[in-house]
């Protein structure tokens, strides 16, 4: 018995080693890339001293702030993320409400349709979108509007999945209580359901932001050329070309902004769900939703 116990702990020690090794190795390249965004010299591979600002805005020619291609990519990414958040979130919340509570065969068909964009490889969506713009929706042209429409289409499902999870977990008893106390349907939507959905809405906003900022394929297939390049497209172009650490600085800026969005959303989520801890809503649930999507 005792021998078995030590054998087991030795086994788990190997597993622990593997796990921590994997976790550190998976983040190490990113840490190095961010480190080089602070390189004082132009090299991407050898460390030439520390400079906090050179590649962000210090360098008058090559820094993110002064290089027009990098600056416009940053702006384009943020613009698309803002458009995506402001369209996909309300649309997705309504769709989640509708699909959760509307009982009909048509609703299950719509539910299936809603899941399709999540399992379709992005290149298929990209090809489909660029063909439909070329041949059918000819009033749309490759450009910011088309990119934004594409982003909304494939981030919509994530909003629905998150909001629906929240809807199912809060149930209908609060709204029923409100109705018993004389609330009109509009009042119970506005004063009961909406506040209860707020944590999920914030989680959705953040996930839509992250999805949009991260997206490369749709943005590329619907790009109008250099003017519509987003940060991932710039990084893609730079990865095989001679580059300066300004590209690392650009990519690092994206990491910072996502992490800040994540932190704000986490704090908001905790604040909005305070007092619910006992009911089993884990504060990290929103954070892990994207990865733990039920299959």
């Amino acid at each position, binding site marked *: 018995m005792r021998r078995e116990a030590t054998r087991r702990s030795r086994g788990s020690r190997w597993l622990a080693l593997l796990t921590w090794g*994997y976790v550190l190795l998976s983040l190490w390249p990113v840490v190095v890339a961010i480190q080089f965004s602070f390189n004082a010299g132009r090299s991407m591979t050898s460390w030439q001293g520390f400079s906090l600002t050179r590649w962000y805005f210090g360098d008058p020619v090559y820094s993110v702030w002064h290089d027009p291609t990098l600056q416009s990519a940053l702006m384009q990414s943020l613009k698309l993320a803002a458009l995506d958040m402001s369209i996909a979130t309300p649309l997705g919340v309504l769709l989640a409400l509708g699909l959760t509570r509307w009982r009909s065969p048509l609703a299950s068909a719509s539910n299936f349709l809603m899941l399709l964009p999540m399992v379709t490889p992005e290149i298929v969506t990209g090809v489909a*979108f660029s*063909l439909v713009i070329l041949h059918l929706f000819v009033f749309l042209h490759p450009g910011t509007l088309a990119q934004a429409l594409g982003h909304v289409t494939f981030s919509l499902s994530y909003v629905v999945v998150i909001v629906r999870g929240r809807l199912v977990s809060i149930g209908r008893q609060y709204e029923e209580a409100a109705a018993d106390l004389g609330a009109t349907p509009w009042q119970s939507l506005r004063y009961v359901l909406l506040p209860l959905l707020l944590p999920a809405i914030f989680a959705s906003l953040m996930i839509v932001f992250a999805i949009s900022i991260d997206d490369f394929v749709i943005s590329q297939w619907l790009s109008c050329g250099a003017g519509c390049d987003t940060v991932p497209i710039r990084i893609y172009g730079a990865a095989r070309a001679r580059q300066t650490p300004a590209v690392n600085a650009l990519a690092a800026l994206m990491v910072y902004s996502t992490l800040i969005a994540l932190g704000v959303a986490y704090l908001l989520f905790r604040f909005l769900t305070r007092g619910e801890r006992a009911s089993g809503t884990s504060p990290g649930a929103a954070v892990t939703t994207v*990865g733990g999507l039920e299959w």
Partner: protein
Amino acid sequence: MYPKWLWRVLALPGIAWLIALFLVPFYAVIGVALGGVDPIFQNPVPAWNPLQWKFSSLLDTLEGFLPGHEYWRIFLRTTEYVAVAVSVCLLIGYPVAYYVSRHARRSKPWLIALLVLPFWISYLMRMLAWTNLFAPAGLVNELLELAHVTRNPPDWLNGNPVSVILALVYGYIPYLILPLLAALDRIDQSLLDAARDLGASPLQTFLRVTLPLSKTGVLGAVVVIGLPMFGDYYTPNVVSGSPQTSMIGNLIDIFFHGGPQPSIGASLTLILTMFLAALTAYYLFTVNRAHRESAP
């Protein structure tokens, strides 16, 4: 309490959006793939009426996937890369998920946070980081020389299939670990205790209880990373860029971006979609059967 029509009306805009901007675009792929080609400019002329669909060009493209034909090698290579990359992901990812789910105690929230972190870092940022490390004068080659493994470190970034597969693993493994972790967490601890009480060794418990119970989770995680990997074209482009390592996604990309015939690209897209739909259908069928068998 609420009027009956309310939920239908709320769902309407979202459904309309998905029909107009997901289903209709996909219909456009079919229209172009099964349509004609302008004889002079070689531009595709899409056929919107199903009665006018011509299947000959799709069948021609499909024939290219037969052994010995033009797309056979690229199809084989894609399957090979995806299969190897998914297996490596599983070999690393399963033990990691298992450890976090079963053994990590106080460190569990931290480990989960660190496992989720790559989701929030742009995929191409991670690829950029990867190419920087594997550059000719990068850290990896420096380490190889320091460790006296080799005097002439390999050229990682020009058509090296090993780099492409490693990059795929590095890029997709976070998407495998989290669903796997969720599946392992769902396994009832009392089943494992029962196995141990009945005299099974830890290894036997793992092989005869945990592993079979996590089978559908493993399949699901494999589907989650396998489908997008089949359509990937940017990873091979970033870490290799050579036709020696191109995958089906690269082929489609080339047919559309400056390539000769977008209608062949559309046919290839259609074939890829049907192939992946068949794989997904097989997965759903397996999961359904497993559910039926486990339910008394």
